[in-house]
């Protein structure tokens, strides 16, 4: 007579990796909605494309690695990676860009490092950087907000733009024919204007900012913030990284703004434009490539925040989320090694 043997504990919260990942995707929905509303259907097309490519690539790799396919696919981690990359790249970027990006993220960044849980870098951000340095023109030509566009891109024209075949044609499409459709992001605009000798305040008077931090961008960031708060509430992520990023950006940009308001934009512009909120709640909090201890996460987040500000202000790229996250990823093992919680019983206790 024998019974089933297993190690204790015999009960579990029944929270699953797939559930965690799925909740991340769910919480992205408000942000995706806002992005679609302000920048057209391109985002949704990219999303569909990215997800299908990601799942196919993941399945193929698992077959090649002789691992169970279905259980890996159902952990939803590829879904998260694909979604993050899809919303990070310009909505009307040509189709092959997202395909290359997703393949790079899944095959090289994730599985060549040993699969889920073993990747050093955040796959979505690594792929974003690859695309950014390989195809700078396409990657920096963001869509104009629907309200400002002369010809707002509907679903049809979005598909047409994304799936047009020739690379040159696409770039021409952006630069010439649809000049009103494509334009620089607010951060890019500021950067260009500052280099041209304009003051930050003058730059902010441009139409794209409509007096605040940029048309659409503010709301997109607010939606990501909401989604992020939901994640916090569901305890999918912990508060340390997100808080550290936002606070450190606020502090740095606040300093800059106080010292030289002419050459530095306000902290509000920094945290509500570009990918700040997306990075703070969805990208930097990717547990695999982040630091793991609570204090370590604070340091990790603060590092990302400072890097974002430094690169935005002094670097060559208008937005710096991807670079900041990758640089922090590199430091994560180092942080983990040195920042450990003080284990129970390892402090100088005093007797009664």
């Amino acid at each position, binding site marked *: *007579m*024998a*019974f*089933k*043997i*297993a*190690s*204790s*504990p*015999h*009960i*579990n*919260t*029944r*929270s*699953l*990796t797939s*559930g*965690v990942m799925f909740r991340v995707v769910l919480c992205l929905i408000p942000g995706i909605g806002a992005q679609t509303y302000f920048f057209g259907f391109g985002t949704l097309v990219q999303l569909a494309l990215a997800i299908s490519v990601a799942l196919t690539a993941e399945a193929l790799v698992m077959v090649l690695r002789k691992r169970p396919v279905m*259980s890996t696919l159902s*952990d939803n*981690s590829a879904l998260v990676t694909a979604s993050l990359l899809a919303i990070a790249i310009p909505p009307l970027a040509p189709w092959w860009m997202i395909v290359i990006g997703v393949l790079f993220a899944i095959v090289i960044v994730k599985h060549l490092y040993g*699969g*889920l*849980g*073993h990747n050093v870098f955040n796959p979505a951000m690594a792929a974003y950087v690859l695309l950014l340095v390989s195809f700078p023109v396409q990657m920096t030509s963001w869509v104009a907000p629907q309200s400002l566009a002369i010809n707002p891109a509907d679903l049809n024209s979005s598909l047409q733009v994304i799936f047009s075949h020739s690379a040159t044609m696409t770039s021409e499409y952006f630069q010439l024919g649809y000049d009103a459709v494509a334009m620089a992001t607010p951060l890019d605009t500021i950067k260009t204007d500052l280099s041209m000798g304009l003051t930050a305040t003058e730059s902010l008077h441009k139409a794209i900012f409509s007096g605040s931090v940029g048309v659409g961008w503010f709301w997109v960031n607010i939606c990501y913030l909401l989604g992020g708060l939901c994640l916090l509430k569901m305890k999918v992520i*912990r508060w340390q990284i997100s808080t550290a990023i936002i606070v450190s950006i606020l502090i740095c940009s606040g300093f800059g703004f106080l010292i030289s308001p002419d050459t530095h934009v306000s902290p509000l512009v920094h945290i509500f434009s570009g990918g700040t909120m997306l990075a703070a709640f969805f990208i930097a909090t990717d*547990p*695999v490539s*982040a630091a*793991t*201890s*609570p204090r370590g*996460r604070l340091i990790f987040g603060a590092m990302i925040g400072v890097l974002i500000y430094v690169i935005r202000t002094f670097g060559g790229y208008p937005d710096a989320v991807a670079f900041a996250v990758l640089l922090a990823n590199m430091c994560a093992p180092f942080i*983990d090694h040195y920042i*450990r*919680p*003080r*284990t*129970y*019983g*390892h*402090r100088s*206790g*005093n*007797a*009664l």
Partner: protein
Amino acid sequence: MLTLLEQLDKGTLWHSPGGIHPPGLKTTSNTQSIKRLPLAKEFIIPIPQVGDLATLTVKLNDHVLKGQMLTNGKGFTYLPVHAPTSGKIKAIEKRSSNHASGLPVLCCVIEPDGEETWTPLQADQASLLSNDAIINKIKDAGIAGMGGAAFPSHIKLNPASDINLVIINGVECEPFITSDDRLMREHANEIIDGVKIIHQLLKPQRIVIAIEDNKPQAVASMQKSIETLTLDDCKIRVTVIPTKYPSGGEKQLIQIITGNEVPSGAIPAQLGIVVHNVGTAYAIQDAVTNGKPLIERVVTLTGEQIGQPGNYWIPIGTPIKHALQHTAFQAQTQQKMIIGGPMMGYAIGELQVPILKGTNCILAPSNNEIGPDLPEQACIRCGECAVACPALLLPQQLFWHAKSEEFEKAASYHLQDCIECGCCSYVCPSDIPLVEYYRIAKSALKNVAHEKKQAEQAKLRFEARLKRLDDEKQAREAKSKAAADKRKQSMSSNDKDAVALAMARIAAKKKASAAEPGTESSTTANKKASVNAAIERAKAKKAAKAAQTDGPSVVIPSANTDTAVTDNTDVDPKKARVAAAVARAKAKKAAQANPQPEANLVSQSQISSVTATDSENTATPVIADSAEYAVVDPKKARIAAAVARAKAKKAAQANSPSSAQSTAEAVQIKTKQETTTETTDPLSSAVADNTQISEKTVIADSVDNAIVDPKKARIAAAVAKAKAKKLAQSQPKSHQPANQEVVSNDAVDNARVDTVQELSSSQPAIGTNEAPAMAELDDKKARIAAAVAKAKAKKLAQQQQKD
């Protein structure tokens, strides 16, 4: 700023990090009062393993009384075990243990007589006893921590340092378990009596009874029983702590109550704190005031698969199967049977295991209660485990290193401070059995540490040995030097005389030793003979070895006939004797006539002349003995022995010039006595001339003996087996020595060849031949002989492999 003691009095609670809130599921079992089950058909009492100093005080089939001590021991951590009921010791054997490993341990199995007769109990009033007397009573009652760890309580009650705070642990934070809850509700006064005894022993300033807030009735009941209680210089209070797992862990509870942490690797007593379980307090009271040893405890039987869940007083040693049968247990597919709670309990694979002192719960959950075991997935480093860890470890890092078997790195992340509470596994979204990894890593680390310690020990012993050998050598040298000096001084004139004298002494000694066995009574002769035989055999073996290593020139004509073997079935003792004499004479002649082949053989065996004569001297009495036992006449035996000895002596004298000849003689002498068993064989005389008779004798002997005595038959069989083995080994060898190729007739012949080889090189045959003969008198020798045969077979095999 309040002092810690004041804060204790206020009931201040401190934060304890981590922890989880699993569903309690306690109502399954805590609604009814504690019941009893009918007596089991047998009780299994594991004999204490700790300290290795315990001895059983009972024997098989002894009758024991309820509460009778079954073991005796001395060690510091030793705890006696007691008979849980009166009855008979049915067996003392290895049984499956109530342990995650299920490895068998030595147990005393008691068959109850149903009378439940108590052994005389010594009831006392605790306040009248000295502390030592109380400690002794507690120790003799075998009281161990009842919370699960089963640490001997008397050690905790007799600490080296002063104790300021005693915490009585009624937290019971694991889901499902309610045994302490029910005990506190129903036996609060007894528990408080136990607390009083603890107070008397430890004289703490404060006693805190800690209970989780999900047990309001227990709190009320304990509260009520301490209302009237007054203790000298000590305040006692019930502190209600919030429900959180694992608040009931000793370290966590201390942190919650005092805010202090037990330093890593230390015990709470170093902080002036001692924690006792409520069940332990109850048992202490029972042991001291009633004199009852710890032979039963409250066990929670719960889970959806148990028809009548609840708490039961169950005698320790009751098989779990019995308890389940009486509580309407229904197994389902993939049933898990958990001892302890779902968080820290272990699953057992076998139900015929006993309830132990630390068994607080038997959980038979249904699959929806605990959920299925999901396959392990990749760690996504979500860090939830680090948040849940009450010891503030980094479980994912520990897992990482434990999985890749880098145990030292895991240790550098303080693996040893893991309390195995299971919180990390509980929250893990990837369903990684983290605790299992940690346990494996911990046990590996423990084994590594043990090995290291052993290696150090070995090194020390090795060095000590080298030193000893060196010292001995030096001492010897000094001694011989001194002796040489002395000799030099007295050497002046009569040194030659001295040498002659010494030689004479040695000769006399030799003579005496040769004469001894014959003159002694037959039994002592036997003994001596057996020792000699052993030595002889050893030599023979070595000779055989030597012969085999350079044996190409051993040429053995296989002229034997099988008739020799079968013919000597019925031997007339008288005829045998006569024939023996004849054979001896012939053998002698044969030896003189053709020493050449013999010499040839023996020269292969490379025995020096000294050993040859030696072996002869010692062998002769043996031969004589065995020969005469066969004839069954002690008197004649003596005579024959004398004759043999005389011959041996003569042979020795004659053969001194050549070693080869001497050994030849020796073999001949043996041959002679061996032929006694085959005298009726007409061929034997012819064979006797041949150098190979001895081999045949062996076979003859074994066949012969087989008829005489079943015992001998067995031995003979063993010998035969050994030979068969050798035969098997000799066959692959056939490609090298030419002589062996010659003898490729059949299996039997081959076997003989081998034996001959050995015999000719002076004498396993004695072993095989003599052993059966003496079997009636000494069965031990027979065994030795068998062992030798086996040994030979083995060594032969090795040799052949090497060749």
